């Protein structure tokens, strides 16, 4: 049975191995140079300001590749679900070959188990390899651009162990959808739609609630103020506070002394203590005193960087649970409904 499963999978396997080899080649050729350039640049940049400028330039120079590789890992599970999962059973059902193979001396259950195991292991391996390669390559860039922390929704899904669970989920989702729809093309379309919806919905509505988030209400100080600005004359004056390093900010609001959320603070940027002074322009100490006297605080809700691995673990477990459910459903459907 393993022979048959492999025989039916080998074209996919060859294509995937080729793509992974190309990725590995690119990473091997450009990765060491990238790491080296960052190490030398950040060591020899001199003052703090020059180092910040170096880091910014360094990231911008490689942003395209960084984005492209991240997107590659992001869409990989969907591609696996689309091209490995959805046709796995539906193509057999469409061509009628299930009636050939289910009448050899192998039960349907074993047949499905073998095919799911091979596909599942391949999906996890492919995704794991791609994540390892891209994570390693991206490391100097993420150090140069700390705002691209791995807690950020898009990067969270392409780092750590979550991507392999995503790949498994997409694969089994494709198989289950294909088993029910019995046609590869509709199965591929539905798999893509459902999986994309999952990929969007999880960071938006599920992930923020998986772990208790931290909410702080902090006074504005020269150390934590990141910006004071207005979008135009007459528009409210807004304040931004720098966030804890590597954290994922879920919500950020300015509140007044009574704890009510306000759109803007009641200070003027044109005159008085908060008008920008000096070079680079910055609000004066009196400005902070005034903001503080008026009772303004910044209420920030975030998940700190140290929540990365617990969050990865929970989300991986969640996907594995759903994957197991999908596999069980496919077994049930194949035994009961396609008969």
């Amino acid at each position, binding site marked *: 049975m393993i022979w048959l499963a492999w025989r039916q999978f080998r074209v996919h396997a060859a294509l995937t191995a080729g793509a992974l080899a190309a990725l590995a080649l690119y990473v091997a050729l450009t990765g060491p140079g990238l790491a080296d350039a960052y190490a030398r640049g950040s060591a020899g940049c001199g003052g703090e300001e020059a180092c910040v400028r170096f880091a910014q330039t360094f990231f911008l120079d490689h942003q395209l590749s960084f984005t492209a590789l991240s997107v590659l890992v992001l869409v990989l599970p969907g591609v696996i679900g689309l091209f490995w999962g959805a046709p796995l059973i539906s193509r057999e059902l469409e061509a009628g070959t299930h009636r050939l193979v289910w*009448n*050899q001396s192998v039960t349907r259950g074993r047949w499905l188990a073998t095919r799911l195991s091979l596909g599942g292991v391949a999906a996890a391996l492919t995704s794991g390899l791609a994540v390892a390669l891209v994570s390693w390559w991206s490391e100097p860039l993420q150090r140069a651009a700390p705002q691209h922390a791995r807690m950020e929704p898009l990067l969270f899904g392409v780092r750590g162990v979550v991507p392999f669970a995503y790949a498994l989920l997409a694969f089994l989702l494709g198989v289950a959808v294909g088993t029910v729809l019995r046609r590869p093309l509709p199965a591929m379309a539905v798999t893509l739609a459902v999986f994309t919806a999952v990929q969007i919905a999880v960071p938006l509505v599920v992930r923020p609630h998986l772990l208790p988030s931290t909410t702080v209400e902090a006074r504005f100080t020269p150390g934590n103020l990141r910006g004071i600005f207005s979008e135009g004359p007459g528009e409210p004056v807004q304040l931004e506070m720098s966030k804890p390093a590597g954290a994922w900010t879920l919500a950020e609001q300015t509140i007044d002394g009574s704890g009510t959320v306000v759109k803007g603070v009641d200070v003027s940027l044109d005159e008085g203590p908060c008008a920008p002074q000096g070079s680079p322009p910055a609000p004066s100490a009196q400005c902070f005193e005034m903001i503080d006297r008026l009772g303004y605080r910044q209420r920030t809700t975030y998940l700190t960087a140290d929540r990365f691995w617990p969050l990865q673990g929970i989300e991986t477990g969640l996907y594995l649970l759903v994957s197991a459910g999908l596999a069980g459903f496919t077994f049930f459907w194949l035994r009961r409904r396609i008969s």
Partner: protein
Amino acid sequence: MSAVIRARDLGKRYGRRWALSDCTLDVPAGHVVGLVGPNGAGKTTLLNLAAGQLTPTTGDIEVLGGRPASGAGQLARVGFVAQDTPTYAGFTVAEHLRLGARLNPRWDDALARDRIARLGLDPGARAGKLSGGQRAQLALTLGIAKRPELLILDEPVAALDPLARREFLQGLLEATAEHGLSVVLSSHLLSDVERACDYLIVLVDSRVRVAGEVDDLLAAHHRLTGPRRDPARLPSGQDVVTASHTDRQSTLVVRADGPIHDPAWTVARLTLEDLVLAYLDSGGQTGRPALEVLR
């Protein structure tokens, strides 16, 4: 006589439509059994239930004393060549044999290779490039080399031209004789049944109309022609299958235990085709039975 297939009140429903209902039949061992009947009689459903491709909605079916497809052991004992003889288009002939060898504990590789060689099939050819007849032969080879005790074939020759049909049935008969397996094949082509089968089951609307060895059936059925009379007044032991009358004359198809002695009748033998058609007619269904007669 032991039964290879034993069905009791067997039924299969798809949604609201019953493809088979209240089917009770016994298929004896050691025969090449032809299952004939009009389209929609439930032949394909019955055979798929026997092969374990389908599970019954109601009733029971036993195949070789076991529940169909209840495990690898039961699957190994029953060969099934499905309608349209599906094969993997991307696999070569040799890969199909390898599939058979990998998935069947009793696989007879020498038999399979020998059959492929005799059929003149190129082992390196992809199944998708084969003709319909060659694909059917490949599927049959898989079914035979599995060395089952019972081989079930669902309309195996429907898509083939007359020559390919004859070759296919020839191959089937040779294999049957050689390995002593029981065969059940469904067909709506009576000429094929006549050529290949020694036992006949006529299935109409899920019911067995008539079943028996072909020779016995032919010996027991007669066409009687004579002066008009009421068929109810025939002697006991003579059952009327069909009757048609003109003003002065009656033509009856009867099943009789012994010879017909009444001198008023002109007695003629029936061909298998006449016999089957008589039973299909007798169902009283409207419209013609969708049974093709091809020679």
